[in-house]
Structure formats: C-alpha cells, structure tokens
C-alpha cells in the first residue's frame, strides 16, 4: 500500500484527501480550485506541457540510466574544483532534515542549531585566514572574488578604479568578475605570470595610484604555490589598494596565513572540504579584516544573548542586506550556500588540525611525487616551473590533445591547457591510481 502518493492526477506531495478538498472548497464557497484563480483568459494556459506523471521508482530508474551514460573515468582534474574524501558521517549528519529542509534564520529563537553551525563555520575560516570576519558563504570562488572587487569599490572609492588580477585566471572567475564589475566604475586589468606565479617586476609596473584591488592566488590555477605573497601585499599596500588572496581551506591549513602577509580579503573555494565532485557546484569563501565590517556582502552570524541572558546566535548587521537596504545593499545575495558551509565545517571538525594539515601535506608530497614520476618518462616534463605545488601541476608533452585522448581511452581524465601542456591534479581520491596514470602516460607517449 503506497498511500495517496501512488495515485495519479495530482501532486503526490499535496496531502489532501478528496473529502478534505471538498470541505475546504465548500468553506470558501467555490466549486473547484480553478475558481480561485484571477487570471485573464487572454493569458491563461491550458496546463498541457506534455510531461507525463511518473512514479518514484520510474524516475529513479530513468535517472540512474541517464547518469550511467557518463563514462567511468578516474579524474585527475582540479583547476578550481577540488574534492577530497568526504567521510560518511558528514553525509549522514548534513542530510538530517532539520538542517536540509530549513531556510535562512529569520527567527533566531527557533533556529539556534543552524546559526551555531554557521557561527562555527565562520570561526574556522577566521582561524584559517587570520582575518577577523568571515561571512556564512557566497555562491562559489568566482562570486566571492567578484564581491571582493566590488567591496574595494565601496571602501576605497576615491583612490582608484582598476582591479588587477593574474593573466592566468580560471575563465569562470574572470568571466564572473567581469560581469559583476560591469555596473560599477571598476575596470579589470591583468598582470603577467612568470614561471606560473606572479611576475613581481611586471606587477610593480602595473600597480599604480589608480589600482584599487590586487588579487593573487595561492595555489595558483596550475597548482603553483606563490613564493612571495608578502611582496605582492606590500605592492598593494604601497598604493593603498586592497590585497585579496585566493585559496581554499585545505591549502590554508598549511600555507602562510593570509593575514600575516597583509591580505585584506581572502576568497576561494571552501567546497574543497565537505563537498564531493559535483560538476562545479561550490562554496564561496569570503573573509575580510574588521575595518570592512559594515561593507561585507552576504549574511553574518553573531553571538548575542536571549531574554534569560543565555548565549544565543543570530543573523546580524542585516542593514547591509538587500531585504533592508534594497538598492543600497552591499550585495544582492539572498539565498547562499549555507548547507555546503555546514558540510565544510563538519569535515573540518572531523579532520581536526592534525588531519587537515596532514591532508594538505599530502597534497604537496603527492603532487611532487607524481610529477617526478611523469618527469622521468621520455618526452614528458613535469612540472613546467620551478615552484612548489599543491595538488596539481603542469605537464609538457608533444601532443597534449592526443595524449589526453589516449588517456581517456585508458580510463583517465586530465586537463588539456594547450597543444603541448596538460595539467594533472592529485588528491587522496585518485592518488592510488597515480601509478596507473603514469604507466598510461608512458604508453601513450611511447
């Protein structure tokens, strides 16, 4: 017996029995629901989309078939979307319906649980970045970068209009940034890389009094660890520009603390924790120093007290937000990525500092070791720079598209950057297959 939900002709998630519906219609004095609608005939629609109703089992089976069309490849892919092993307990706890089916905490008294979880998430980011404020999420790293650039326009509005970003920036980040700043006075310019990290001399030439924002990534999009972040921060500081560092929480647990090299804002992809590979879905990390408190985009959870003087949490400083401030809000964001933030915090607390640093250390050692194995092959050079690497690195071959196609036939996915360059990302999820990847590269390039 599958109950009313098995019937056809209505929504399986509208619980009304026929008798209840009749009684409600009767109470309202109408014969059917259609009478309640005030839609002029000229724009009325007949309800025929041509989509048949299906039972749950059929939908699940159909979708299983659909996803089974995806080729089963071992992915050595990164470039901004990273996944590490997520323990089952994170799936289990985050899927509790009390978390999953709630919404923004407009009534703090009845949503203390999620508020505390978000406060804890903010706190973890504060520790990782060394900055004193972290919001409870942006959509992804691209949106976080774009919002950071707009922040610079608000807090240093008199000192310039140029946003400086690396020439080698993930297309999705650059493209999103370009769109977000299109309505402001900002223009985006690039500074060159040398050996896959910032060319400091060229950057020094590029920064001037019109610069309002300097963005640097570590690790960079090709996995290189920026060797002298502090020098970039100094250049920004000398010209009164905001210094923004892009990273992720795993890298931040090992690499220099951004605040200690002068970062005013840290952005990045916090979904590196807690989120499995999800076709690009992300979690935008946004942290900044205290002086920008009133200009922060997005939601903030703060500590307060309740009427019994017990500790309580609440959304705070909401006068920055669109539902209060409308066109003068710091951002238009409303719905964010809170549930992903919950998962990231759970994953971080599961790992603890030892586990986090250990994971990060593996990202360094495994990248170096796989690069060395590839470099030992004839006709293969890896990495293509003298930097230290985090998770990923570039690989030089004669015919990159051809090699990638050969690897795909052998069950591996890698990035193709250009005719002669591949990129390989090594994490705890694929490191056990790294020897097989190296053997396959040897076979394909032989």
């Amino acid at each position, binding site marked *: 017996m599958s109950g009313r939900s098995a019937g056809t*002709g209505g929504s*399986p998630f*509208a*619980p*009304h029995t026929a008798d209840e519906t009749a009684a409600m219609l009767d109470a*309202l004095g109408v014969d059917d629901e*259609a009478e*309640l609608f005030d*839609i*002029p005939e000229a724009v009325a629609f007949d309800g025929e*989309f041509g989509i048949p*109703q299906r039972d749950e089992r059929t939908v699940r089976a159909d979708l299983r078939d659909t*996803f089974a069309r*995806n080729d089963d*490849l071992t992915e050595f892919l990164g470039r*901004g*979307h990273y996944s590490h092993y997520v323990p089952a307990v994170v799936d289990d706890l985050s899927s*509790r*319906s*009390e*978390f999953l*089916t*709630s*919404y*923004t905490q407009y009534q*703090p008294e009845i949503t*203390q*649980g999620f508020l505390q979880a978000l406060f804890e998430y903010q*706190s973890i980011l504060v520790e990782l970045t060394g900055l004193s*404020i972290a919001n409870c*999420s942006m*959509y992804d790293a691209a949106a976080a970068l774009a919002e950071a650039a*707009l922040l610079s326009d608000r807090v240093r509005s008199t000192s310039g209009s140029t946003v400086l970003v690396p020439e080698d920036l*993930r297309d999705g980040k650059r*493209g*999103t940034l370009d*769109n977000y700043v299109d309505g402001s006075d900002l223009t985006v310019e690039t500074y060159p890389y040398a050996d896959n990290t910032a060319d400091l001399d060229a950057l020094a030439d590029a920064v001037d009094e019109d610069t309002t924002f300097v963005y640097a990534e570590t690790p960079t999009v090709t996995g290189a*660890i920026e060797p002298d972040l502090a020098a970039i921060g100094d250049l920004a500081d000398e010209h009164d520009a905001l210094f923004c560092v892009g990273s992720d929480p795993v890298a931040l*647990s090992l*690499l*220099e603390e951004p605040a200690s090299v002068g970062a005013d804002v840290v952005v990045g992809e916090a979904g590196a924790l807690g989120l499995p590979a999800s*076709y*690009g879905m992300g979690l935008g990390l946004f942290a900044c120093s205290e002086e920008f408190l009133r200009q922060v985009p997005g939601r903030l959870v703060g*500590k*307060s007290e309740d009427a019994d003087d*017990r500790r309580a949490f609440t959304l705070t400083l*909401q006068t920055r937000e669109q539902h209060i401030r409308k066109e003068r809000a710091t951002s*238009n964001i*409303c*719905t*964010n990525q*809170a549930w992903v933030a919950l998962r990231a915090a759970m994953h971080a*607390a*599961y790992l603890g*500092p*030892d586990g986090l*640093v250990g994971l990060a250390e593996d990202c*360094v050692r495994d990248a170096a070791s796989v690069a060395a194995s590839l470099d030992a092959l004839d006709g293969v050079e890896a990495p293509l720079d003298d930097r230290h690497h985090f998770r990923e690195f570039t690989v030089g071959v004669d015919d990159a598209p051809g090699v*990638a196609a050969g690897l795909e036939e052998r069950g591996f*996915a890698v990035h193709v950057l250009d005719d002669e360059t591949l990129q390989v990302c090594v994490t705890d999820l694929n490191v056990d297959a790294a020897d097989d990847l190296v053997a396959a590269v040897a076979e394909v390039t032989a």
Partner: protein
Amino acid sequence: MNYDQARYGDDERNEPLLSEKDSTALDPGEGSALPDDLTRDSLELPGLSEPELARHYTRLSQMNWSVEAGPYPLGSCTMKYNPSFADAVAADPNAAVHPDRDPETVQGNLELLHGLQEYLATIGGMDAVTLQPPAGAAGEFTGIAVAKAYHEHHGNDKSEVIIPASAHGTNFATAAMAGYDVVELPSGEDGRVDVEALEAAVSEDTAALMLTNPNTVGLFERDITEIADMVHDAGGLLYYDGANLNALLGRARPGDMGFDIMHYNVHKTFATPHGGGGPGAGPVGVVDELAPFLPRPRVREARSASNGDGERSDPSERDADDTATAADGGALTGHDHDHGHTDDAAQDDEYELFDPEHSIGKVHGFSGNWLVLIRAYAYIRRLGDEGLLDASAKATLNANYLASLLDMEVPYGPFHHEFAATAGDRDAADVAKGMLDYGVHPPTTKWPEMVPEAMLTEPTEVENKRSLEDLANAFNEAVADTDEELHAAPTKTTARRVDQTSAARNPRLSWHALGEAQRASENASGE
C-alpha cells in the same frame, strides 16, 4: 499544539561550541615538505572524534526548525516539502563528476541539463534557458545583464529599471549592481501596478520593468498585457521574478504574458531543499531575441546528430560560429513559444556545449548548483502535467482556506498562493514571536510595506486541512495575546527572545571574538 524545542546546555549557554569541546594548536610547518617561509606558524582548531561529532550536530539539528518538523509558511519563500527520492537521485555516484570533463564523456549530465532547459522553457513559455545562475538573486542579475547586453548590442541608450515598491529587495539591489538607476513604482490602490503611474514612469530610458506575478501579496497583475505593451513600446524589456511561479504552474506562463526574461527559483517552485539558507538555483529563461546573450556555455543536441547540414532550426541555439541573423533591435513584440518540446530523450541522443553568439560570459565559476538542478529535474518528472497543475491548485486553495480561518484582516484580494494579513494595531514581529510557541514557524513579517504590520503567509500545497487549522490557531492565539505575553514570547524554543541590538552593536562573529570579550571582562574584573 503542545511544543517544546530541544534545549541542551546549562544556564549560560546551549550545546557548547566545537571550540569549547576541543581546541588543538599545532605548528603546520613542522616536518613539512615545504620550506619554512611558505608555511604558517600555527593553527588552532577543534578536532572531534566521530561519536562526538555525531552528537554535536545531532543536537544542533534538534535545535532547528525545518519543513519536515512542521509548517514553515514564510511568504515568498515557498517552503514546500522536499521529497526524499530527489535527494537519492542527486546522490548517484555516477553524477559526481568534475566540471572540466570532456563533454563527450559526461553525456548523462548533459542529457539532464538539456532536459531541464527544455522543461523550464516549456513551463515558463520561454524559448531558451540557462541553468548557470546559482540562486534567485543571481538569476535576476543574469537576466538584467542579458537585458543590458541586448540594449548595448542594439545601441539602445538605457539607464533605468522600473521596480514596484512591493518587489523583493533583491530586485532593487540587482538593478543597482548592474549599474542602472532604480525607478520605484508606487502600488495602486488595489495593490497592483498602477498603470497610470507606470505610464508616467516609462520612458525611452527604460531598460526593463521587473515584475513579480502574482505580486508579493499574491495578486495577479490583471493588466499584464497592457503593461507589457507599454514597456515594449518604449523599447524596454519585461523581466519576470519567478519567486511566485508556484501559483501559476500550468495556469499561466510568463512568456504568454509578454515577459521577455524570467528567472526560476527552482528551490521554491520545484521543491529542492533550502539547506538552512541555500543552495538554490536561479535558471533564466528568455525569448529568442535574447538567447544569443545568455551565459556560456549552454547545452544543445549535438549538431551532427540533430542536423546534418550544420544549420540550426532553433534560433535560440545559434552559436558564435553560426551565420548571425539576430533580431534587428527595437521593441520586442509577439513571440512564438511553440517549442517543439519532447519529454523523453532517447538514450542515444548526443549533446554538446556551445557558446551563445553574443554571450554575456559567465555568472558562476562553472555550471551552477548541479545538485539542486538534478533534484528539480527529478521533481518535474515525478509530478508531470497533472502534478504541477495540482501544486498550484492546492497551494492556492491552502492560502485561501488558511486566510478564511484567521481573526485578522487580509486587505487585498483575490490572492493566490500567498496573502499578507495585517496584525493591525499589534506589532507583526511580536505576533510572530508568539506563534513560535505553538509549534509552527511564523510567516514573513513587516513586508511588503504596502500592508501595515504585514504577515506574508505562504502555506504551500504540502499542508493538509488539519495542519492549516493548527496553523490558523497559532495565528489567532498569538494575535489575541496581550502585549506583555507577546513581549515575553517565545518561551518554548531553544532560545528565548534574542537581543538583536546587542548583536549588532557589539559584533562577535567568531569564537575568537568570544575569547577576546571574555579575556577583556576577566582582565577588567581582575583589576
């Protein structure tokens, strides 16, 4: 209804923070493969064993309200039940792939995305859809950016976006983000757009009118055709805010009303879980003339498979390589939404990504909130035509039935899926706090401003008759309480009334800040 929310902890606080359970400091540089100057000196974070972690988060979950716990009638938020099967579908390991995969190796993902593009186009009466925007506000931004690109492409000099005063705050913020001046339109006496005021506001500077229909008090804009003509005649575009689409499913389509651009809040209309604030997804649909400006990439049937001669019959799928025959600018009128929709993709259909000819570029780092999009697609397939039509029927029936039970005035009508009751001479926020003690979540309060002390209520189709009666009882009991009683409320929730002023005046936004505050007070008392 008797209700007491879980409360852990002591007289000082609830469940301790992670940092109060464990705090371990270490030197990450020690023994690192990296040189000392590249590593941080210290890291201090909590680390919990799995049993401790499970208990911590289970307790936090018990201190949190949710749709599965009870009514959650937040107006304009469409807090529907989120069916479990959609979660199960989204957890398919075969769907867990990296966004940079060669499209030929992720045909399953592309099949789903293409299918969802088609479903949404049909449901909204639009010609082309992008799934990239990760939330409703991001959809608004995408839509307005598309409008801007369209106007710039055609040399139309536009500077203003018109928005009714009763619109969602995101509309105003979005228009400002896109660099437009906001022209706020006062509501008419009947709660709808004042057509005369609109006529006065529309000019050659009008880039777009952003409209929610039914509007934020649930009223259908009866003059929509006239409104559309007025905006189009001035060379402007009509933007549909999809927050209230649940009211119209199967009964009216924005495209048929003359809208050129719309966003869909799939987490609302198509029942994906709101996750404590997100993620959502905000796909954007447009008419043919605007399709070339959508974000890149979109998904289409593979050229070789669908069309041997390399010409695409559907102009919305023309890309930068095609011979351009984009519309020649000027006003958009009467578009044809005969879409040739097919429900079932054959297993051997092949799909590819393409960049629209004049794409605005990217609005998300990759392709949006994938796990949300999967659920929406599964939900639409589950409901089908009949289910979608019944969703709007029962959502509207529920709102009307609930309103009929309230001892409160509902100033405007006839409303659809939501209504704004007025608390009259009572403070709506206080009434909401009173309702918390009855085992329900209160509605959205004090908004929209056109209704004094508004309680914007959207029960959705998932409540049954009895549940609505319980909900009505909570409204009626709370609004009948004395001021003293309301000021003392709530008493049965994890926290009693939370001091918002203290939180904002003295921001403590991390456990680090608590430590500092505590140390400061200890120092003060030690002196």
